């Protein structure tokens, strides 16, 4: 059981290295939630400011529909300020941000208003400009409301009930119990973060444990001790996998604690509450086990092949890119997608995490994701062990 001696020594070294302590413990537990709090608070403030801002809206031929103009001007109050313009310049003014949006009436607007016909009104705005997009949506909502009111007034004048113009009155009532906006955000962010931490959590430990040993000249001293290379590889693998697993579990804890510690910085994501069951949390932690093993296998293979830590880092670049892209795809995919996706490394487990967060239990999907993850983990560990046995690789300096 010499691998336990190697494991214990590797972990002692981890605990003595500030950089590794930060990556494994501090970053997932403290820094990631703080970054989320910062992003959320900033986004909330931006949205509030954007909503509160008086939109500058250019009007084209609004004067030719005096009834509509009369209805719009007082109702707009502080939300919008109308400026007269012409059709030729509104688009360039929107693009150059002189105005936020524009209301463009047709040339026959006057005739249509007089005959009480529908007036096709265009609301123009710039999708790439947040202020313009919000203003455009504000103007559209405002016009729709005015349109409904004018229609109701016409019906009343004609002696009909105004309810004829509004056969359905829609009211949104969010269902409680599954948490609020925060859970939706978590179901997008958490799988990505967990997969990333579970795989890269062991990065520094892996780099240090073989490439670092080559670089410092300690590997030779280690290889002349009466411990088999299998035991040595096992001890190092266990240390890297443990670091990745601890990092993954702490990132789970890091995403959950804001829901239970009421801090105003997290209100934007926790205001709807969260209803995570022990089963959900345990399932998510369990998914991290094969992921950490696979990550440890890959990282240890790279560290063994590399001549030194710098070379290992160079090779890790493309690997981390693939891991990031695969786990990021989970943010955009529906949780209950095709079962074949479950077999994609990293993406399958990330979607299982997403399902767990949204209280979806799909045994076939979970089974395929778990089974293939274990297979990938075994392959990665086998590859790392094989590299460790090759003297041409292990003694590359």
């Amino acid at each position, binding site marked *: 059981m*010499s691998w336990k*001696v*190697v494991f214990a*020594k590797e972990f*002692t*070294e981890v605990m*003595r*290295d500030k950089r590794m302590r930060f990556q494994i413990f501090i970053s997932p537990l403290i820094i990631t939630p703080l970054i989320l709090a910062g992003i959320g608070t900033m986004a909330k403030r931006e949205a509030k400011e954007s909503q509160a801002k008086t939109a500058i809206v250019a009007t084209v031929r609004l004067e030719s529909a005096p009834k509509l103009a009369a209805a719009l001007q007082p109702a707009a109050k502080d939300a919008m300020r109308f400026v007269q313009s012409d059709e030729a310049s509104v688009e360039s003014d929107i693009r150059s941000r002189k105005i936020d949006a524009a209301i463009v009436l047709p040339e026959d607007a006057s005739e249509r208003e007089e005959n009480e016909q529908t007036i096709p009104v265009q609301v123009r705005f710039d999708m790439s400009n947040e202020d313009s997009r919000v203003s455009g949506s504000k103007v559209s909502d405002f016009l729709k409301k005015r349109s409904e009111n004018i229609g109701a007034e016409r019906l009343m004048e004609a002696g009909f009930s105004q309810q004829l113009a509004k056969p359905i009155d829609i009211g949104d009532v969010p269902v409680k119990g599954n948490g609020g906006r925060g859970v939706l955000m978590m179901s997008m962010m958490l799988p990505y973060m967990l997969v990333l931490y579970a795989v890269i959590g062991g990065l520094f430990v892996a780099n240090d444990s073989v490439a670092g040993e080559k670089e*410092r*000249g*300690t*590997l*030779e*001293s*280690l*290889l*002349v*001790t*009466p*411990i*088999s290379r299998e035991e040595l590889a096992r001890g190092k693998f266990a240390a890297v996998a443990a670091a990745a697993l601890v990092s993954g579990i702490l990132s789970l804890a890091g995403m959950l604690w804001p829901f239970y510690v009421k801090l105003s910085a997290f209100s934007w994501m926790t205001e709807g509450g969260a209803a995570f069951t022990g089963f959900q949390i345990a399932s998510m932690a369990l998914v991290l086990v094969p992921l950490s093993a696979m990550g440890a296998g890959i990282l240890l293979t790279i560290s063994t092949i590399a001549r030194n830590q710098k070379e290992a880092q160079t090779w890790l670049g493309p690997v981390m890119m693939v891991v990031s892209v695969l786990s990021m795809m989970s943010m955009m995919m529906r949780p209950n997608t095709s079962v074949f996706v479950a077999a994609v490394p990293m993406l399958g487990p990330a979607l299982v995490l997403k399902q767990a967060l949204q209280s979806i239990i799909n045994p076939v999907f979970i089974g395929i994701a778990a089974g293939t993850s274990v297979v990938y983990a075994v392959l990665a560990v086998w590859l790392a062990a094989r590299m460790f046995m090759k*003297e*041409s690789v292990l*003694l590359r300096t």
Partner: protein
Amino acid sequence: MIVVDALVKEYTGPKNQVTRAVDGVSFTAHQGEVFGLLGPNGAGKTSVLRMLATILQPTSGTAIIDGSDIRQDPLAVRRKIGFLTGAAGLYDRLTPIQNLTYFGRLHAMPDDLIKRRIDSLVDRLDIGRYASRSCDKLSTGEKQRVAIARAMLHDPRVLYFDEPTSGLDVLAARTVMNFLRECRAEGRTILFSSHIMAEVEALCDRITVIHRGVVTATGTIPELRERTGATTLEQLFLRCIGEDHDSPMNIPHPKGIAK
């Protein structure tokens, strides 16, 4: 005792080209003897030492280290040997005590024995002042003392010294040389590889010269002096590798390789 028998090591390059770094090396180092391994850079000394330490697997041939075969029972060989190079090879984030304890455990020594051996070596090598300080805060000489303690921790009967004073200052080098003398006095078998002729002359009972993977000469220094007619060890060394251009006493390469 070390008996090396027709040791061969071939390396395969990236384009499958085979390089024979060690080509049938044989020699015997007796118990209590300091046996010098000499050769220019790239001669194959490190490959020989690594095979004898079971870090590398020989392509053919074998060696018996204190009764254990390097091919058949490498773990038993590793229990019997201590290895020291010019690079201390310590874990910088650990203290000397932690480094020594780690290697003691890898040798499957019981904890109480590890403690007794560490206490004794710390005392003998004067490590006490910095025994609980991180190794990254130690001087080169202090690190080399800890490396010596590590090589001796499991009380090996055979010691390999691969250029142990390379990169060390005079004081640190003297510590290593004194330690080597003590080991010989204790009856341990020592294989000593060095480029420093003064060290070789002062310490080695017998030497073997390796050139391009092949043993060109083996014997005591006086024997080889007589054979080559050399007056200095440097001259002797050059003649053993056929590089003393003005001398007719150059030893021809056994494989007929021209210089």
